[in-house]
Structure formats: structure tokens, C-alpha cells
């Protein structure tokens, strides 16, 4: 609408929107606040807790007691690693589907997406047993394989949509200009595809970081990422609120920040193009 909303209406809406916003992210805000308190203070009533002393003790405790660093590194390795592995497989696939489409291409894409809809419990047992027998339980390799497979459809899909947006004529122009396939990929396609690949990378890292089925089933300690580490707080001993807050804050902070920048990618990646 070209007409300006009245200032009063805007103020009212602002109040309403901010209230709703704060309410929704309140649990997160509260967690972050609590992470800077001592255990004793963390369990006090809200106002009492807020006005108590700020401290970094809980962060220190989390890092001392557990090998927090290892869990964090596992999360990083698993999310970045599986994303890179998926990209290596997906980039050629998406390339060929976008630029040399056949009659079956759309069907192929739909089939790939449908593999994501298979319930994980349907293959839980064989995967668990295979991993056990192959010595892959609680290993980074094992989990990398699974995480790559479950997100491969989304990675292929997202890359496909980005590649499709590259005008075919530009690639043809490069061919007329004498570029062979290799030159075409290196000098023309890749620079134009980099933003799309980066977006896909971002979204997939977020999705894998938060994956909470296979990471819980197939790891215990060595390859356990943060999802598993946090799950350990479900049967705690003694006071643990502040530590939980600190651990949670550290676990979600990277992804929260990445997530704020990938709203568009989220819509593209998870609605399979049905919403623009």
C-alpha cells in the first residue's frame, strides 16, 4: 500500500510485535541470562535470580567437568564434514540435472526428495547392527556417512534450484568462446554458482548441527556431538541449571547466528520450491 500507516497504528503494532517476539524467544533469552549465574542462584525465583551476581563460573565448570571441547569439535566436524561430502556428490548431480535435463529429471528429483521422508526408525536396527559389526559405532566416519545420506536430497535439491537460475545462454556463450568443459566449469559456472553453493552449505550445516536422532542413537562419547552432550543433562546429579544454561548457550549460539542470516535459504531449502 502506498499510503502511510498512521503513526499511532504503527506504534501499537510495534508494541504488539515486540511483545510477541520477546515472548517467543524468551526461553532462549532466559537460558542465556541464567548461564551467567552460579548454580545456587540459578534455581532461585525469577527476580531473585536476575538480581544475583553475574559470573562466568558456570562456563568454566562446564569446560572443566566434561570434555566440552571434544563435543563441540565433533559437532563441527560432523556438520561441516557431512556437508562437504554431500556437496561433492551433489554438485555434479545437480549440475547435470539443471543443465542437461532429461525427460525423467523431475521424477528423479522427486524420488530423491522422497527418500528423505522415510522414517528413520524403519532402518534403525540394520544401521545399528551394521555399524556395530563394522566397528563404526561412536565413530566420526560412521556418523558422517549417515548424516551425508540423510541430507543429500536437500543439498541436491537446493543446488539444483540455484543452478537453474544461471542463464543457460551464458554457458553457451562460453562454449562459443572456445571453453572446453573444464574451463566452462572453472571460469564461468563456479563463480556464478558460488553464492548458491554457499547458501546450501549454510543451511545444511544448520540442519546437521541440530540433527537429533542418529546422533543420539549411534554415538556415546567419542564421536558424540553437542546434541548428545546436552542430552546427558536429562538425568543429572545435583544442581545443574547454570551448567545446562552455559552448555546450551554455547551449543546453540553458533547456529542461532548462522540461522539469522539464512532465512531465505531456509524457505528455499525446506519448502522444495513450492513457496517463493
Amino acid at each position: 500500500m502506498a499510503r502511510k500507516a498512521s503513526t499511532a497504528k504503527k506504534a501499537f503494532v510495534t508494541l504488539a510485535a515486540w511483545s510477541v517476539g520477546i515472548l517467543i524467544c524468551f526461553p532462549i533469552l532466559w537460558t542465556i541470562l541464567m548461564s551467567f549465574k552460579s548454580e545456587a542462584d540459578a534455581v532461585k525465583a525469577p527476580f531473585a535470580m536476575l538480581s544475583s551476581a553475574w559470573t562466568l563460573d558456570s562456563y568454566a565448570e562446564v569446560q572443566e567437568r566434561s570434555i566440552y571441547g571434544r563435543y563441540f569439535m565433533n559437532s563441527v566436524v560432523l556438520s561441516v564434514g557431512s556437508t562437504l561430502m554431500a556437496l561433492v556428490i551433489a554438485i555434479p548431480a545437480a549440475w547435470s540435472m539443471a543443465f542437461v535435463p532429461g525427460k525423467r529429471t523431475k521424477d528423479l528429483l522427486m524420488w530423491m526428495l522422497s527418500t528423505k521422508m522415510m522414517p528413520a526408525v524403519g532402518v534403525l536396527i540394520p544401521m545399528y547392527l551394521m555399524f556395530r559389526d563394522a566397528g563404526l559405532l561412536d565413530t566420526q566416519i560412521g556418523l558422517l556417512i549417515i548424516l551425508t545420506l540423510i541430507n543429500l536430497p536437500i543439498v541436491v535439491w537446493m543446488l539444483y534450484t540455484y543452478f537453474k537460475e544461471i542463464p543457460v545462454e551464458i554457458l553457451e556463450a562460453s562454449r562459443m568462446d572456445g571453453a572446453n568443459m573444464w574451463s566452462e566449469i572453472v571460469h564461468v559456472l563456479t563463480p556464478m554458482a558460488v553464492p548458491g553453493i554457499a547458501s546450501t552449505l549454510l543451511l545444511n550445516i544448520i540442519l546437521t548441527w541440530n540433527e537429533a536422532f542418529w546422533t543420539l542413537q549411534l554415538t556415546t562419547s567419542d564421536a558424540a556431538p553437542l546434541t548428545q552432550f546436552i542430552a546427558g543433562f536429562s538425568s543429572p546429579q545435583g544442581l545443574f541449571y547454570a551448567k545446562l544454561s552455559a552448555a546450551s548457550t554455547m551449543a546453540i549460539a553458533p547456529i542461532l547466528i548462522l540461522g539469522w542470516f539464512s532465512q531465505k535459504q531456509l524457505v528455499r531449502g525446506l519448502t522444495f520450491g513450492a513457496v517463493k
Partner: protein
Amino acid sequence: MATQQSRALARIMVSPAVILLFLWMIVPLMMTLYFSFLRYNLLTPGTSFAGFDNYYYFLTNPAFFAALINTLTLVLGVLVITVFGGVALALLLDLPFWGQGIVRIMVISPFFVMPTVAALVWKNFFFNPVNGMFAHLARNLGLKPYDFLAQAPLASIIGIVAWAWLPFSTLILLTALQSLDREQQEAAEMDGASWLSRFRYLTIPHLTRAITVVILIQTIFLLSVFAEILVTTNGGPGTATTNITFLVYAQSLLSYDVGGGSAGGIIAVVLANIVAIFLMRMIGKNLDA
């Protein structure tokens, strides 16, 4: 644009993805199917053919029926909250106000919190009848604190999951709202349509497609909610918060019943397919990609 050379190359480039996904789909599933017909428990040695026994026991287990109801309740509950909440929020966020960017960030944050953190934060800092925020508030008001996870376990979990998925639905619906054809709205205004009419005849039909997508995508993920249940109630009290996914997990990895668990896994796959077909038929007409 496709010449013979590029076609052959294209086929090679697609193969790794296709082969891997094909194996991923077929091999484990076939194994599950195979196991489901065996009497196979990890604690006792040896296996033997069991026919359809595993299926029979799984389906007649009273826990199964409870799990089925719980699964559907969970999915429907979250869908209702996220669709209605999402539409409302999207409409709100579409209006002009100060600080839109920041509010948007606040609203989408829950989606990026890993399920285990979300569940434990709610369980301990809010639901806990001794130290949780709701308990403190209740005491301040002179009321007895409510033990959410003990007295209304499934509803509590629905709450947690809905909180995590509301941002997703809001984001999708907001994106759809912002792609509303402004010229169409202006034409309707010139034709004398009120805000309510425009909402009813232009906005809602446009949103229907996005709502359909939201329902479809969310259902797929909601059928397999797991982590939140694991870290809060472990399926309990009793089977109050056990869904199909959790039931199969419990049978497979807690009872070590490979045969029974496999049967459960197959049943879960069948149910997921039924839901998918049902959904596609019901709302497939809204999606002409």
C-alpha cells in the same frame, strides 16, 4: 542445448547420488524386513524364523495403540498451533512497524535451537514443579505449582515441539504473504472491497498453498519426533508420551528385540506412507508445482 556428449557426461555425474540414495533406501529397509520375520534378540543367541509373529505381537501390544494415538495427537496438536499461530504471526509481521528485522530474528530463533536443548530448557527452567518459572509464578499467585510433565506430559511435549516449529511456519507464511500481488489488492480496493473481503477472497486463497506446504513438510518431520521425548519423559509416564518412533526405539535398543523392533520399524514405514498418500490426496490439488 544438450548435445550427445553432454548427455552421456550428465548421466555419469548423476550416478553417485542416485546409486547412494538407492542403496540407502533399499538395503537397510530390506534388512529390516528380513529381521522382522525372525525371532532375534541380541541377548539370546541364535535366530529362528518367526513368520508374522513379530507383527502380531507388535500390533496387539497395548502400547502400540497408545503410541499410534499419541503420534497422531502430537502431529495434529503441533499442526494446529503452528498453522493458526503462524498465520496470525505472519499477518502481524507483515504490517509496518519499527524494528521489523529484530522482531523477525526473535521469532525465528526457536527453530535453530537443537531439540535436546529446547526440550531440556523447557523441562527444567519452565515446567519443573519446584524450580521452574511457571512454578515460581504459581507460588507468587498463591496457587499450587502444576507438574506439567507428570500431569500433562503429551500436551507439554506438544508445546515444546510447537514452540520449535512455529518459526518455520511463520517464516513460510510470511514469505508467501509478502509475495501477495499488490496490484491485485489495489484493483480490489478500487472495486470497493473492504479489508475483510480482500482478506477472505484474495489473501486466504493465496495463503492456502503455503499452508499446504507447511502442513506437508511439518507432518513428515513431526511423525518422527524423538529427541524431545527421550530427554524429558522417556516415553512415560507409562506410555503417555510414547509415539511410534519411540516405541520402535524402545523395543529395538532398550529391549534388544531385533525381530520385534524390525516389525515395528516396517509398520512405522507403512504408516508414514499411508499418512503421505492421505495427505497428498487431500491437499494435492493445492500444489500444482
